[in-house]
């Protein structure tokens, strides 16, 4: 290094080594109460009075996976239209009511659930719960609102198909899940055009049911009053439990295969690869999350150090274990310079093979365990974080004490647990590799890693 040191030197630090950590302070889990109403709705309340706000989330355990084979995205479309009218409120009135209560409303659906969530000032708690109840029970699906939302969705679908991250995820899910409904993450334009109001209403009537619903409310309220309000809002609601159909098994992949999505004119290559893994219910979930934190799930992880901090291939490398309700999957992603697509894959697999072959060092193990336990407690400090953690536990029906025991479970993990989890769930040999970019730039590099199937952005096989 050659610094022409024309700049003034500053006095040395009073201390040349980092201070030790102070004694850890215990995490106080907010007091929560759980009740199940007579109609089956499970209610979880946790008070937190730091800010004068509440956040309520009502979950129905039914989402796009249920309709993927007949009408992809129908659950999302239904959720979008739910907020546009009830038997007693127009769309306009709903939005005005929200603003009057300082509230934001979200209605959405994922693969496994549909959600109505609202956050607003605690002085309007009753009105906020009342609105959630109205949307859950009395949505009227106005025809003109449906048509407008459908057109908006159509335009969104077009934009999605120009977005590298979306295209990569869509292709990987198709490959990993095959005939299982998790394979389909979004509708095509034609499928959006085929939505009918009657299908949305039917979906809503069948699946927005209290029988298997979960309501989580966190924030500035008194638990007894909140229970009384919830009983008033939802207590007399009766509906049968919807059936959950069986789904096909996802395929078993042997050997690597490359799935290239051709996006002409790309000045970068989006790499996304992965394999089927596990859900939070698996006994080695914690070990797998820990292995992921060491591999590529934290800023200070092997993959980030390698391909970002040493080689400068990418800004945004990341690995993750993604748990859906029935299956989970492991992914590695990075948006990289076109000329280093192959070099990136080489390093991704090198690091994957290394963590599968050699024990992690005691320092890495200790560091990653502390990382997971610390970040976990950060999540308790905000209403969003708290309600997110509660929904993790109750939505997937994880064991009582999952949150309280999480940190101890992580602290007890060993290097053997890490290597075992990596060998089971970071499937280097059979990884399915998606790359999105301009094929003129990357096809030759892709072919080094397996047979290549090439698709266009619409999902058609073109080579």
């Amino acid at each position, binding site marked *: 290094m050659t610094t022409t040191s024309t700049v003034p030197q500053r*006095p040395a630090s009073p201390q040349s080594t980092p201070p030790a950590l102070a004694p850890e302070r215990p995490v106080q889990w907010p007091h929560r109460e759980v009740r199940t109403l007579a109609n089956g709705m499970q209610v979880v309340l946790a008070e937190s009075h730091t800010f004068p706000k509440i956040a309520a989330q009502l979950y129905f355990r039914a989402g796009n996976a249920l309709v993927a084979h007949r009408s992809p995205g129908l659950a999302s479309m239904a959720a979008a239209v739910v907020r546009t009218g009830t038997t007693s409120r127009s769309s306009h009135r709903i939005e005005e009511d929200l603003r009057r209560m300082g509230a934001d409303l979200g209605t959405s659906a994922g693969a496994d659930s549909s959600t109505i969530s609202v*956050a607003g000032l605690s002085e309007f708690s009753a009105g906020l719960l009342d609105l959630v109840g109205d949307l859950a029970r009395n949505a009227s699906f106005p025809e003109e609102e449906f048509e407008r939302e459908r057109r908006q969705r159509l335009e969104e679908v077009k934009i999605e198909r120009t977005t590298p991250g979306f295209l990569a995820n869509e292709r990987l899910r198709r490959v990993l899940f095959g005939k299982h409904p998790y394979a389909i993450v979004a509708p095509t334009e034609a499928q959006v055009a085929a939505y009918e109001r009657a299908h949305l209403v039917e979906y809503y009537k069948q699946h927005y049911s209290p029988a298997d619903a979960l309501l989580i409310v966190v924030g500035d309220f008194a638990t007894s009053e909140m229970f009384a309000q919830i009983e008033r809002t939802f207590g007399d609601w009766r509906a049968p439990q919807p059936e959950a159909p069986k789904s096909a098994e996802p395929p078993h992949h042997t050997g690597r295969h490359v799935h290239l999505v051709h996006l002409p004119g790309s000045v970068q290559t989006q790499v996304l690869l992965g394999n089927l893994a596990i859900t939070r219910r698996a006994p080695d979930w914690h070990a797998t999350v820990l292995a992921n934190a060491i591999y590529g799930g934290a800023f200070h992880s092997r993959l980030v150090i390698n391909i970002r901090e040493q080689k400068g291939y990418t800004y945004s490398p990341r690995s993750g274990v993604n748990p859906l309700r029935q299956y989970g999957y492991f992914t590695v992603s990075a948006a990289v310079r076109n000329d280093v697509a192959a070099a990136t894959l080489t390093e991704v697999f090198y690091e994957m093979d290394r963590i599968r072959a050699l024990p992690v060092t005691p320092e890495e193990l200790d560091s990653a365990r502390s990382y997971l336990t610390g970040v976990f407690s950060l999540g308790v400090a905000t209403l969003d974080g708290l309600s997110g953690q509660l929904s993790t536990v109750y939505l997937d029906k994880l064991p009582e004490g999952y949150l309280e025991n999480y940190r101890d479970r992580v602290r007890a993990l060993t290097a053997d647990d890490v290597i075992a989890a990596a060998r089971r769930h970071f499937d280097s040999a059979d990884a399915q590799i998606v790359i999105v970019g301009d094929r003129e730039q990357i096809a030759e590099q892709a072919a080094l890693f397996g047979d290549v199937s090439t698709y266009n952005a619409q999902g058609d096989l073109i080579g």
Partner: protein
Amino acid sequence: MKSFKIPVEHTTLPNGLRVVVSQDRTAPVVTVGVYYQIGFRLEPHGRSGFAHLFEHMMFQGSENAGKMEHIRLINSSGGLLNGTTNYDLTNYFESVPSNALERVLWLEADRMRALKVDDENLRNQRDVVKEEVRVNVMNQPYGGFPWLDLPPVAFRNWQNAHNFYGDFADLDAASLDDVQRFFHTYYAPNNAVLLMVGDLEPAGAFEMARRYFANIPANPKTPRADVTEKPQTEERRGHVEEKFGPLPAIAIGYTLPERGTHERNVAGIVDRVLHGGRAGRVYRRLVLEKQIAVEADGHAEIVDTNGPTQMVTRIFHKPEFTTDETMTAFDEVIAELHDREISEEELDAVKVKFRSDYYSMLEGGMGSYMPRFGLMHYLACFTMFDGDPDRINTVLDGFLNVTPAEAQAYARKYLVAKNRAIVFRTPVAKGGAQ
């Protein structure tokens, strides 16, 4: 209205470092930030993107914490960290379990004191930044729209108008000598604010701050770029090609009143009359009623900028409507603000939402795993730009006092063609790149 007060204590060290703490015992975690009053708007003339590239260099190693050591020490303490470059400031922040507070302060002091980086670090981060620009701008539909598109159209002073992410040629020209000079010029305690928010004892936190930061010398010659703009006399328009996305998009920016004026408060309220989701007038008219647009919303940075700033509306409209038709519908919304006072009822609702949004901002502000990021950020802005961290508890009053007459007067004076800039982002081919 429930009364609500944030506890704030602050002091200034002899070297000029302002230290602000706010205790919050919700969870045993603390969020720490160091804010430097140098942003991409203030970077040296002709060195586009340098402030942001430099932000990356601050993670590359300091005197006693070599490359990756800073990151390792935060992650292994159970914490998360990041940094961002903004118009008028650059910030570095960590959320950690509160037992790591002293370690975080040691790390932040170490890199305020002495940056220890080499040519390889610089080459590496130059590559990383180029991929950042590609992933966020060059390879995304509507990348950089409108935050990179609008300033060159709206402003004439290079400071306000240049490419903030940086031209690649300028990034390539940056040398290690530039890095060290920039560091010694702007990264001095008297040009910074240290913030600690969360599970802490204020007296102990101040003591730790003194221990690690007190002997870092001030730089009495910290320059500040001149960001003033000549008065605008007519509407400004610009065009940008959209390479990937299929929809035409329009961004309209109206320059805000100056910081510290009551008119700026009025602007903050009128912004929320126009924008802020489906109840906002722009969305209601263009998306819900006329159905010209599929998305229309906007925002004004009231608190976190300290120079010429615009309230910006973004509209994505259906291809079957022309830009003229879209602009006509938008202009009708603006004209109504000129012609009629906002009703008390609408204004009251906007204010309730404003207050609620303010609390949410303080509580989180950057995802659920950076507790009180927003509180820290606003405390930093009030300290740095107004010299008054206690504004955190009074700033709302200015907004909640706005009257319908003030809103109308503001609209007539500021929401006019000669105070605005428009960028049309037009797809290169119908149906996008396919």
